[in-house]
């Protein structure tokens, strides 16, 4: 939305998981608490980065934002490797969400059901805020015609900062949700961010609906892929990206005009 491509989003995802992990280890922070604490902590960190650094790069080629956030990834990842070691640590879901739920036709891990439900709720809230509230309207206007919006007396800079921080907070929230399903480790964000890029290319940028639909479709495809060809499951998303680019270069939901 902001036309900032944040390479460090994967790193923020990883930081979210680490806040949950350390919160539990050092302060006995329960999982449900981490769902609130991690986004706030990491979101504030994101706000700091936006205000101190990223702001200076607006107005330049957007590639500089990509490069700066790439530098951040290197620093944050190695800082976490120094702080936490390279090996992963397990993080267990709360007892109320362990075990399996009988869905009638199949048994499904309860925690995964919770993650699916949470993801749907979060996507719906984001969509609602952006599309149906005055704040969302301002954010959309500020990305389309920032000068005009400033002329109407709205502080677009502040809107951008807040939107960036919320985006980072959501990445951290996703990190907490993912923590019980995988090891909490410094490189856990890498795979996510590259897959996210492929999803964005497939779906087309700036379209929340497009990204959500593509994201869910890819998740489904990868799960099926894991059953059909386990060895090449990781490559499926990239193959799909190639096919989409050959057929429809602007992405499935992108308009050709925005395909720059």
């Amino acid at each position, binding site marked *: 939305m902001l036309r900032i*491509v944040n390479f460090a989003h994967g790193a923020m995802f990883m930081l979210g998981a680490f806040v949950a992990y350390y919160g539990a280890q050092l302060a006995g922070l329960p999982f449900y608490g981490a769902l609130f604490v991690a986004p706030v902590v990491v979101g504030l960190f994101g706000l700091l980065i936006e205000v101190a*650094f990223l702001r*200076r*790069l607006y107005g*330049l*080629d*957007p*590639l*500089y934002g*990509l*490069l*700066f956030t*790439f*530098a*951040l*990834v*290197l*620093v944050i*990842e*190695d*800082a976490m*490797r*120094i702080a936490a070691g390279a090996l992963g640590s397990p993080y267990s879901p709360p007892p109320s969400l362990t075990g399996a739920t009988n869905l009638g036709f199949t048994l499904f891990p309860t925690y995964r059901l919770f993650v699916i439900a949470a993801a749907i709720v979060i996507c719906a809230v984001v969509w609602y805020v952006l599309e149906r509230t005055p704040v969302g309207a301002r954010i959309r206007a500020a990305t389309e015609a920032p000068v005009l919006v400033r002329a109407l007396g709205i502080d677009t800079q502040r809107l951008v900062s807040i939107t960036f921080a919320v985006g980072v907070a959501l990445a951290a929230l996703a990190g907490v949700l993912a923590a019980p399903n995988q090891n909490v480790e410094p490189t856990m964000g*890498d795979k996510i961010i*590259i897959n996210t*890029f*492929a999803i*964005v*290319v497939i779906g087309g*940028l700036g379209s929340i609906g497009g990204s959500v639909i593509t994201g869910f479709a890819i998740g489904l495809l990868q799960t099926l892929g894991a059953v059909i060809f386990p*060895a*090449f499951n*990781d*490559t499926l*998303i*990239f*193959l799909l*990206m*190639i096919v989409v*680019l*050959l057929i429809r*270069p602007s992405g499935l939901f992108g308009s050709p005009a925005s*395909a*720059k």
Partner: protein
Amino acid sequence: MTLALLGSRRGAVVAIALAIVGLALPWFVYPVLAIDIVAYALFAVAFDLLLGFTGLLSFGHALFWGGAGYVATILIAKAGAPFPLAVIAALAYAAIAALVVGAIAIRRQGIYFAMITLALAQLQYFVAFQLGDWTGGENGVQVSSRGTLFGLRLDDDKAFYYAVLVVAALGVWFVVRVVRSPFGAVLGAMRENEQRAVALGFRVDRYKLVAFVLSGTLAGLAGVLFAVGNRLSGLDGVDWHTSGKVVIMTILGGIGTVFGPLVGAGIYESLDFFVSKTPIGDKTNIVMGTIFALCVLLFRRGIVGELLAIRARPKGAPPS
């Protein structure tokens, strides 16, 4: 400005200075580190042909560097191929890979181009990971002997270094020739204003693709020198961090300056080596990332680019 430098007497002085540094290098640092520096220097120059002179940011150049390295080391280690044959096969692989990746990626521009090249490089990474029988998976492919070239025993590290230096110098010379050719002028015109180049009747996509293939093939050459120099090619070489590393070297040195990426590669590799000897150990990215972040924030023209800007500025003029 830069092009003027290349042809000027000052350019000749810089070239001679670099040649002296290149010749003397293995007497000051461990020869394999010298090989790394020269291989990365060629890699960065090849990359800059695309970023600095064509205006395309690839975030997937590890595909050519690491992929060609695998092809060469696998041929030497498993088929006993002589060194020159392994190099030719690896270059063919890099060129074909660049043709395919380029043809897909140039459908988009800017950030999308970067993301697509990154994703395609990652595709090769996963394939290399899965083909463990060939690539050795986490262990990589080890080469016990580098073989000979025109009767020269390449197993001597210094001898191999000088062979690498000659090849890399030819590679850099080739890039300079390309940049100064009419073809290079069209690339520059596209970078400055793509619409205008289209309006002038140039088939922009063809030019981009040729530039991509040249850049990818040279990156492959550099990757072969690196892998054979270290007698090892592994997943590190095809990992996205390697793609990022060449981006850092090029921008740190100065994009579009030809000599800048050489300087950037030299500084990066030597700094990386020295930092790895401190208590930070292998977490050198915390230092390299900080330097790169400062470079993006404060001196986007890179070291050589800023120096050129200082020289080019008339006396008494304020800094731009």
